[in-house]
Structure formats: C-alpha cells, structure tokens
C-alpha cells in the first residue's frame, strides 16, 4: 500500500523567535529552519511500516517555497521513495493546505496519509483533520500507536484523560503525537542516495487550489513578559513567601 506523508518546513524548535518591531510578524531572517518535529515522526512511522512490509511506497509532500525542497530531501534520506513540492510563496492556511493535499490524494490514491498533529510555528493542529473531512476519510489524531491489518488501521490516541483506541477503515488519516516513535537520523549514504530520488515540483494552479485566506493577521505582538522574581535561600523562606506574600497556599 501507498502512504502519503505531508511535511512542513518550520523554524527549528530550538529557536526562540522574536516579534518584528513593526508588529507585522515574527523575524525569520537567517533563522535555522528544519522539518517540523511531528512530521519527522510521521516520516519515521511510514518508514517503519515499509520495513514491516505493510507499505510499498512512501511519498513525501510539502506545500511551500523552493527552500522546502531541503526538507523533502531529508524525508527521502530518511526513507521516502519520492516527493512532491507544491510551490507557493504564500503563507497558506490549513484549509488551503488541506485542499491541496486533497487534490494530491485524488491523484495518488494513498491508503494512508500520516501527518504531524501540529506544526510548531502556526500551532494550529488542523490540517490532518481538515484533509480527512474533505477526502471523506476517518481520522486517528494524536497517535501514540498505529497498527495496520486486514484493511483497517488501529490507532491509539493520546487524549486529555489518558489513551483511547479507535479502529478506522482504510483509506484513513493519522496524525502523530510525540510518543509514536523516536525518529532516526539520516545516514550519509542515505543522504547521498536521496539526491537522486525523484522530486516533482508543481504549482498550486496545477492543482486548481487557491491559497487566498479569509483570516487576516492584523498584528503580531510579543507576549506579556514576566517580571523577574527573587531567589529564596531555603524551603522555609519559600513557604513563608507563598503563605504571606503571594498568599497562594
């Protein structure tokens, strides 16, 4: 079976972003970029399913600018067989991204689409669920365990109260949570091999999708800063402060 893995190029998770002085957005000039960590987990899961013999082909896809080819190469170094870049300079929103992915699902007919549960820049956590709705597929979000057997996928989900397991008919959408797996590092030979794997570039217009958005960002501001606190010398002093100064215990 075929798996489609949508991945996203985002600011590296170690970077603390700064808001631009004119409040138009965050400053991403010269900032280190990387594959969204949840997408790495998605690629890893697809690769493990292939190693188990469940999956025959893995296609990585991203909607982004030229630079995002770097993350597609990474995905192929990790084990994706080929990849597709839907090239756009626009800051596409999840609904438009889901529509573009739906067009690719129609073209490629994957049995499984594995996405990250959230991108760590927009923090929207929408794309997988929207794609599932548009494609009429069931969804297993926030997955910590995925088992494919007999035309179905069983997904254990991390929910607020603990864990929930659902069984979905294929084709289905799965979004990854942190505990699903620990992604491998790409080896040098695999990085070299990935350079020769097919990377198809198409335009949003080719897919008949518009990236116009109904949501406008009016301004982006830094969060309220916490004022610096004090160091206490002992547990006794801490308890005294919490009781008499902060009055929280």
């Amino acid at each position, binding site marked *: 079976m075929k798996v489609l893995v949508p991945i996203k190029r985002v600011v590296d998770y170690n970077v603390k972003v700064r808001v631009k002085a004119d409040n138009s957005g965050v400053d991403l000039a010269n900032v280190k970029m990387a594959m969204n960590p949840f997408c790495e987990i998605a690629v890893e899961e697809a690769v493990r399913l292939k190693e188990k013999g469940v999956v025959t082909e893995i296609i990585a896809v991203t909607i982004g600018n030229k630079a995002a080819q770097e993350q597609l190469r990474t995905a192929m170094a990790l084990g994706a067989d080929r990849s597709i870049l839907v090239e756009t300079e626009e800051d596409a929103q999840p609904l438009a991204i889901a529509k573009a992915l739906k067009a690719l699902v129609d073209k490629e007919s994957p049995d499984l689409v594995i996405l990250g549960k959230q991108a760590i820049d927009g923090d929207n956590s929408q794309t997988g*669920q929207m794609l599932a*709705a548009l494609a009429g597929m069931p*969804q297993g979000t*926030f997955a910590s365990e995925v088992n494919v057997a007999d035309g179905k996928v069983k997904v254990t989900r991390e929910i607020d109260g603990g*864990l929930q397991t*659902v069984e979905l008919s294929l084709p289905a959408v799965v979004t990854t949570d942190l505990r699903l797996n620990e992604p491998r590092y790409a080896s040098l030979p695999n990085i070299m091999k990935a350079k020769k794997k097919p990377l198809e570039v198409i335009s949003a217009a080719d897919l008949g999708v518009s990236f116009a958005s109904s949501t406008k960002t009016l301004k982006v501001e830094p969060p309220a800063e916490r004022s610096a*606190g004090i160091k206490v010398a002992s*547990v006794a002093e801490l308890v005294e402060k*919490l009781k008499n100064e902060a009055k*929280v215990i």
Partner: protein
Amino acid sequence: MGILVYAEHDNNSIKGATLNVITAAKAIGGDITVLVAGSGCGAAAEAAAKIDGVSKVLCADNAAYEHQLAENVAALVAEAGKGSSHILAAATTTGKNFMPRVAALLDVEQISEIVAVESADTFKRPIYAGNAIATVQNSDSTKVITVRTTGFDAAAAEGGSASVEALDVAKDEGKSAFVGEELAKSDRPELTAAKIVISGGRGMQNGDNFEMLYKVADKLGAAVGASRAAVDAGFVPNDMQVGQTGKIVAPDLYVAVGISGAIQHLAGMKDSKVIVAINKDEEAPIFQVADYGLVADLFDAVPELDSLV
C-alpha cells in the same frame, strides 16, 4: 445566527472547560445555544440549561455520539451549526480532534486556541509556542473557533434557565469504531482546572520518586504534572504532560521541580499567577520566569517542603 457552543460532559454534568468557552461566547455577543451530544446524556443537557447566559440547549442523544468519534460528531456539529455566526469548542483533545473537520465540512477556516476576543470577528491567539501573540480577523460567515480555556474565566454553572430541545439527528459515518480506552484514575484535581500544580521533570529520575510530589500535592489540593522528558522516560503517563504540545495550565501556583524550563515547557505554564522553581542548577532557564526560585537538590527540598506545608 447566534453562537453554537459544543459542550463536553460525562453524561451527568458539564465539564469545566465548557464554562470557560461560554465566557468567550458572551464576549463575542449573541444568543448562546449549547449542543450536548452523547448517549444517555439527558442529565448533562439539563445541567447545561442551568449555565448562566445560555438561551437554548440542543440534546443529540444517540449511540453514534457515545465515544465522541470525530467523524460522527463533526457531521452533527456541521449540520447543527450551519447558519450560526460562530461555532465554539474548548481546545481540549476532544475539540481539537473534531472542530477542524467541522470547519472543512463548512468550507471555512478555523481559528485555533483563541485567548482573547477583540470583537465578533477579531481574536488573539498564541503562535510559535506562545513566543508571539497574533491578532487575527476572520471574514467567514460562520467562524469556527477553539478556545484556550486558560484565557477565559468560567461562567457560573447555575443561574440560567434555558429550554432543552431534542435534536434527532443520527450521523453515523460508519468509518470508525471505538475499541477501548485507558483513562487515568486520580482523586487529585484535574490538571487544567487545579488552583495549584506541582510538576516534575527529568530531575525526578524515576516514577517512584513522583510519590514525593503526590504527597505534597495531596496536602495542598494540587494536581501533578510533568515535563515531556519525564513522560518520554516513562516516569508518568502522557496525560500529565504540560507544554506547547501537552496541556496548557494557568493555576494560581505552579511549582516546577527538576525541570529546566525549555521553550516548549514554558509555553504550557508561563501564564500561571505565581511560579516556583526548584532546581539544583542556578543557570536553569526556568529561573527566568520564576517568581520564587530555590537553588537546591530536589531530594532535600521536596521532603522539607512536605514537612512544612
């Protein structure tokens, strides 16, 4: 028109998170209809009718909604919410699961995790792990929104007298089935609703050592949380993770024990009223957000704390 609020419940009562969502709905303005969907959820619908500010309750009592499967619930909400000015749900794992599906079914965008209402079409939401707050304006005729509960006070659970109407719509998409669940059982308050939260990190070393935190927590009526490192290492279950990709908490008092203070952890707790950090490394970033910092070995400090509270 009007606002549709999706309620979370346990069939008998409405969960606290929904009360925060009602407050967000009041800030937007308009008649508030609460949708209670479940199987055998009549008592919860009656409870929803008593919430202050609610004008109508719709009760969709059907086996298809028993386990809140996203496919079925989204189809129901998209139908019930068609024509509403806003559809709101809490940004819990339940709301995050089905709401984007609702938005896609209605062909509108979703605004995730709002923390403030500026006007009926303009909202504030954190991006980049809370390192930036965006003010966004949406022009869709129905606005689909998830609400970060820490951004809004809870509405009064009593004082309202809304009418309850049965909503006889069965949406069983037949593509997903509930297999089972493992829910954490605890007598301690829920992490996201607790007034005091004590969290442990990698510095705790193992799951057994969390007993020290449970003992202090029980004396203070606190909930216990954890960093991702502590969850990944298997010290404690996933539902205890606080952070950008776990639970967002904003208690009156947050005590971080053996937690370094990574951006992703801070994103989940830095709106707490008072923050205490106990860490043996005086350079740990957690001290930059702590109101009271104690540089000490937690294995000395926590037992002492236990004896003093």
